């Protein structure tokens, strides 16, 4: 019975062979990004080729986990009922110090305190025993 109550009902990522190191990193409390060995730019989301130069020499590196809130919205109505208990919540894009931007949630922050450009740091939210989501909190 407790299984039913605590089951995580929201959509979960299904890591692929390409993206597995990213998700394994989050489980270990670490943000890992690909970096192109040819053009040296960081890449997110994980890919099999660099979207800047089509090189296939992408190498995993540990990133700072720091960035700024590029933009955000406060979601006040859930489209997916699994999020209904969370409203209002902050759905956001964070620009990482390394350059790429990621879609995320701002947590540990009352929605009305969110501001575009505020400094944020990674928070690893272990939503199941297999998956931690990359969220952010105020720096």
């Amino acid at each position: 019975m407790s299984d039913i109550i605590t089951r995580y009902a929201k959509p979960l990522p299904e890591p692929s062979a390409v993206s597995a190191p990213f998700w394994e990193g989050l489980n270990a409390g670490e943000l890992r990004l690909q970096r192109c060995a040819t053009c040296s730019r960081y890449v997110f989301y994980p890919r099999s080729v660099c979207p800047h130069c089509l090189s296939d020499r992408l190498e995993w590196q540990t990133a700072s986990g720091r960035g700024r809130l590029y933009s955000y919205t406060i979601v006040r109505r859930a489209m997916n009922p699994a999020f209904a208990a969370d409203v209002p919540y902050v759905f956001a894009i964070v620009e990482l110090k390394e350059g790429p931007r990621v879609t995320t949630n701002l947590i540990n922050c009352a929605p009305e305190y969110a501001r575009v450009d505020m400094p944020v740091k990674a928070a690893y939210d272990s939503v199941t025993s297999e998956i931690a989501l990359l969220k952010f909190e105020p720096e």
Partner: protein
Amino acid sequence: MTLKRAAAITGIGEMKPTRSPDGKSTLGIWTDVARHAVLDAGLSIADIDGLLIGQPITEQAQMWPSILGEYLGVHPRYGNVVDLGGASAAGMVWRAAAAIESGLANAVLCVTGEASDVETFYAPRARRSAQQLPYREFEVPYGPMGVNSGYALIAARHMYEYGTTSRQLAKIAVDQRTNACANPDALFYGKPLTVDDVLASPLVVDPLHLLEIVRPCTGGAALVVVSPQLARESSNPPVWLLGAGESSRGMMLSQMDSITTSPITEAAPKAFAMAGVSHKDIDLISVYDCYTITVLVTLEDAGFCAKGKGGPFVEEHDFTWQGDMPLNTHGGQLSFGQPGLAGGMSHLTEAVRQLQHRASERQVADCEVAFVNGNGGIMSEQVSLVLGIE
């Protein structure tokens, strides 16, 4: 290569949007609007040799051109699904013209529409096989509210970068509603709005209020694009394609260089250059408006005002059908309704009506050249068109 005057729109068919399907099917709606468009163009079904169709948002199938072609008795020599989201209808027009220019077809029927309502539209979609698409892996787990949250991110960033205000955005919805009050077919006909009404409506995804967000509904639209020869034989004044430009940039906002500047900056100049007209020549602006912010960014990126100055520009101009800058005279999708991809086609059907001087009580005086923009995804797919009469 130019497509200037390579083809013309001669016939349109459009269903009055309704809040729910009321027993109609998507295929039935397509059939109705297609029939009206063919008859309006003064053609018989045997004249139609091309078929372009927009993928319904809430229904999945393959080989739509064969499904509709069989039902209507069309045997297309040129058939395709155009998959550019809300830009699909505008994308069909230049694709049809290119097919005609290259000799593949003489009369291309373009069809959109959907039997849908708010509940169906927002219901969680059945999981399809493409579970490992990047947006499912890296965006959906964080709880986006459809594309509403994406446009909210654009609006919030635009406010941060340029000082745009909710009051400025609300004015777009208000002017368009004034237009809808002169269009008995609009879903929100007879319901005028004020800026304060918009700002008093509930915030759904900050900073966007409920009345800044389009309403999914049931409806459909079709149009016929024909060769210059058929255009000259038409009893309706031909609405010529004068210019076209297209540019797209992916699915996720996180992957875009800037979320406040769209690929319209590439599509619109191409359309203007091909047409050989400038902004001051435009008598009607008919541009995609899934949200108020969509219109504001479109006006900036299409060059009607400087980047970042959309807010003051909106305050300075009257977008109603009698105003100095008529825009979305049918009410826009915000007030006409958004029947799937037919919402995008509504900007074309309205431009055709205005250019053919059959927009009844909301007719724009001396309307000869129109700018139309289609927008798909989250300001991703962009198709700009310039249309004109002789």
